[in-house]
């Protein structure tokens, strides 16, 4: 019998605009020692479904309308809150997405880890410590003794996620629910955490529900995959079935959205260098006079009409390079030469004109738009600022621009919060293209988006880049995306260039170990 068996679960939310059905007739099961993955884009109801089983969806406004969820033979949905409390955290444990906010910064790792043992089971201090150390060792913390007495800020994101997993395991649960546990992590760290989960599942024989928006992530570890959209399970099957014989068109579109292939060599790429970066150094002053060298002697030569992919994990300095080129952060030394003009030496007035020619698209479309400006105002601003339109004829230009980036006319008067992530990114792209720039920085422009939206935005960027004959600096931690878009690739680590060359060579036959590690960490190799 399955460890957890959910049948015909229906969950709805009451709102002022009527009831919203968040989960519709959902059925799935998890076996001991198996991983079931719930896959869906934001708003697909995957998290709500699982949280509702454990009474973690507030009612009202939520309500569980019907269905059953048998855990170990007993129906979770018909339990009293007190009984459910005893199961939660003990037999069924959670690992959440953001390891940064889940730990109390004022308590040592060890104390947070052993708290449930000490207070709920009355274990004495020495025993709790021993158990804690064993667990830290099991989840791969290198020096458990030292880690036990450390504070969360001394741990990296990946290590914190390991601690979160250890915390989930402390009461020896039989079912682990992991809600996007690797989404906030770098690729190499993600690969390690996935490996750890798979290993725990084998060794401890526990069932895992793995919630993710990314099919590629679960392709290496899931036994069963349930694909959800708008609260409904569209398709469920074994990993092989889903990846090799997807039945539902939506599943196929999800698979198709996983970026594959590489960019064909640019045909009309000119010999002329549009952007030359010479020994760029950027330093940040830290407390106590320490200086952090965020970018260390980086040189770039970018030909007009080509795309350079900047690749690296968080803290590698890739965004800082872009900001230094655009003079959004000052360079400590080195030169940036754009079309024969030294950007780093320009005066105020010339710099304004230079800014018209180089633009940037940011990662987070929720932060990069002024929440109090309508789409119209946001898009009209660059036209008016650079004298590319008058107050009278700016309207037509804004509408044309909206059409180009795929936004309906009627959106002009709306504010950013009324849009989805993908639509917001379209607005941001429109704003960047309004001044008809020659060079554009795309700083992780699709990392915050759902996979199918990601594919649409990438296509839009590609089309626009061709149409406007843009030279692009494309920043991403996702090698698959870079492979698809870039002519040349630069791999960065801790501010230094690891490898720089044509995309085919760097990604196809890497010379450096670090590049190889990055490539090996890309999930979903088996199926793409």
């Amino acid at each position, binding site marked *: 019998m399955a460890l957890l068996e959910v049948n015909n679960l229906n969950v709805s939310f009451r709102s002022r605009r009527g009831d919203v059905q968040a989960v519709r007739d959902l059925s799935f099961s998890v076996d001991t020692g198996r991983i079931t993955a719930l896959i869906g884009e934001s708003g697909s109801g995957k998290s709500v479904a699982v949280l509702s089983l454990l009474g973690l969806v507030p009612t009202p406004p939520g309500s569980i309308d019907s269905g059953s969820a048998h855990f170990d033979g007993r129906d979770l949905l018909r339990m009293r809150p007190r009984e459910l409390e005893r199961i939660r955290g003990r037999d069924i444990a959670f690992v959440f997405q953001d390891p940064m906010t889940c730990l109390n910064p004022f308590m040592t790792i060890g104390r947070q880890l052993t708290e449930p043992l000490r207070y709920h089971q009355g274990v004495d201090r020495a025993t709790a410590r021993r158990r804690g150390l064993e667990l830290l060792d099991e989840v791969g913390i290198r020096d458990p003794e030292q880690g036990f007495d450390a504070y969360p800020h001394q741990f990296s994101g990946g290590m914190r996620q390991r601690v979160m997993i250890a915390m989930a395991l402390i009461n020896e649960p039989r079912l682990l629910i992991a809600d996007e546990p690797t989404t906030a992590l770098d690729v190499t760290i993600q690969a390690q955490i996935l490996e750890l989960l798979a290993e725990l599942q084998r060794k401890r024989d526990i069932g895992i529900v793995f919630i993710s928006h990314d099919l590629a992530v679960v392709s290496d570890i899931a036994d069963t995959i349930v694909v959800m959209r708008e609260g409904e399970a569209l398709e469920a099957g074994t990993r092989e079935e889903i990846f090799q014989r997807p039945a539902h068109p939506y599943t196929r579109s999800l698979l198709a959205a996983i970026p594959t292939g590489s960019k064909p060599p640019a045909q009309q790429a000119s010999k002329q260098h549009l952007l030359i970066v010479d020994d760029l150094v950027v330093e940040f002053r830290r407390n106590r006079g320490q200086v952090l060298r965020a970018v260390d002697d980086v040189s770039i030569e970018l030909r007009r009409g080509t795309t350079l992919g900047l690749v690296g994990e968080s803290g590698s300095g890739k965004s800082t390079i872009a900001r230094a080129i655009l003079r959004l952060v000052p360079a400590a030394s080195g030169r940036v030469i754009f079309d024969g003009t030294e950007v780093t030496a320009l005066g105020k007035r010339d710099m304004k004109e230079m800014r*018209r020619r180089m633009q940037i698209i940011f990662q987070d479309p929720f932060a*990069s738009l*002024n*929440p*109090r400006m309508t789409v119209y105002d946001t898009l009209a*601003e660059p036209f008016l600022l650079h004298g590319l339109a008058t107050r009278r004829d700016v309207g037509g230009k804004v509408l044309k621009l909206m059409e180009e980036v795929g936004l309906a006319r009627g959106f002009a*008067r*709306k*504010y950013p919060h009324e849009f989805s992530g993908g639509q917001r990114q379209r607005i941001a792209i429109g704003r960047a293209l309004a001044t008809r720039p020659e060079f554009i920085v795309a700083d992780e422009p699709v990392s915050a988006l759902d996979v199918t939206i990601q594919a649409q935005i990438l296509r839009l960027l590609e089309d626009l880049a061709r149409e406007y004959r843009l030279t692009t600096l494309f920043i991403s931690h996702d090698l698959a995306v870079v492979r698809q878009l870039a002519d040349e690739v630069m791999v960065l680590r801790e501010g230094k260039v690891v490898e720089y060359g044509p995309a085919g060579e760097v990604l196809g036959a890497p010379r450096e170990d670090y590049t190889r590690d990055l490539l090996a960490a890309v999930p979903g190799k088996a199926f793409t």
Partner: protein
Amino acid sequence: MNSGAPGERADQAEHSSLWFDAWQRLSRNRLALAGLCVLAFFVLVAVLTPWIAPYDYAQQDLDLGPSPPSAAHWLGTDIFGRDLLTQIMYGGRLSLAVGFIATAVALVIGVSWGAIAGYAGGRVDAVMMRLVDILYALPFMIFIVLLMVVFGRNLILLFLAIGAVEWLTMARIMRAQVQGLKEQEFVEAAHSLGLSPAAIVGRHIVPNALGPIIVYTTLTIPNVMLLEAFLSFLGLGVQPPETSWGLLISYGAESMEEYPWLLVFPGLALTLTLFSLNFLGDGLRDALDVRGRAD
């Protein structure tokens, strides 16, 4: 409270502004509108008082003495037999003027000071905010007394003195807001478009920082009115026979057991004003928050 989606009218006109949309939202908020009407009425009465007041404000009727509300004196009379309604009307002129003008002074100085310090950062910020700290440390009363001694007692100075004290907190709030906002990507985007620092602060930062400022402003106005009462009570503000709500209340409080109406009516005028201000302030804050509050 209602907060409709602004997108409903998307097809009517292409262009709109934050202020236009805010006004539309505000006009749908009944409480805020009521507050606005009450305030407008008070201001109107204050302006017209010299022509519409039923009695002369200094006219005493010692034979009558303190009398409860009657047909001749709607709100009664004080111990000198002066008409209370007239007193409240004249007092309102001063209280409202102090409240609004002193707060406006504080608002203008505080918001610009805080915005500049917060956006410039570094040494400019340090110098500007240390100055604020120093002014904070000065005992308020000594500051006012000094001003009065040096420049003599007059009303304009009273406005300035109160405003000069109240702007300090305003500047701190604004600076904290701006510091948070200038790290946002949309500010970086504006920078990369080529906007000047002044335009960035004016168009992108200040509108997003207004929420807490508006709330604090609506708290400052009543505060200022009470401060004036306190100063007047000490003999540093207005002197009888001129009067203000604060003075009326403090005299009323002395004799509240014998002549309660002397406390109740001026108190009512002040309370009504404060309520209206609060509702209007809340309404404004919600109206300027384009995301709209669910309830």
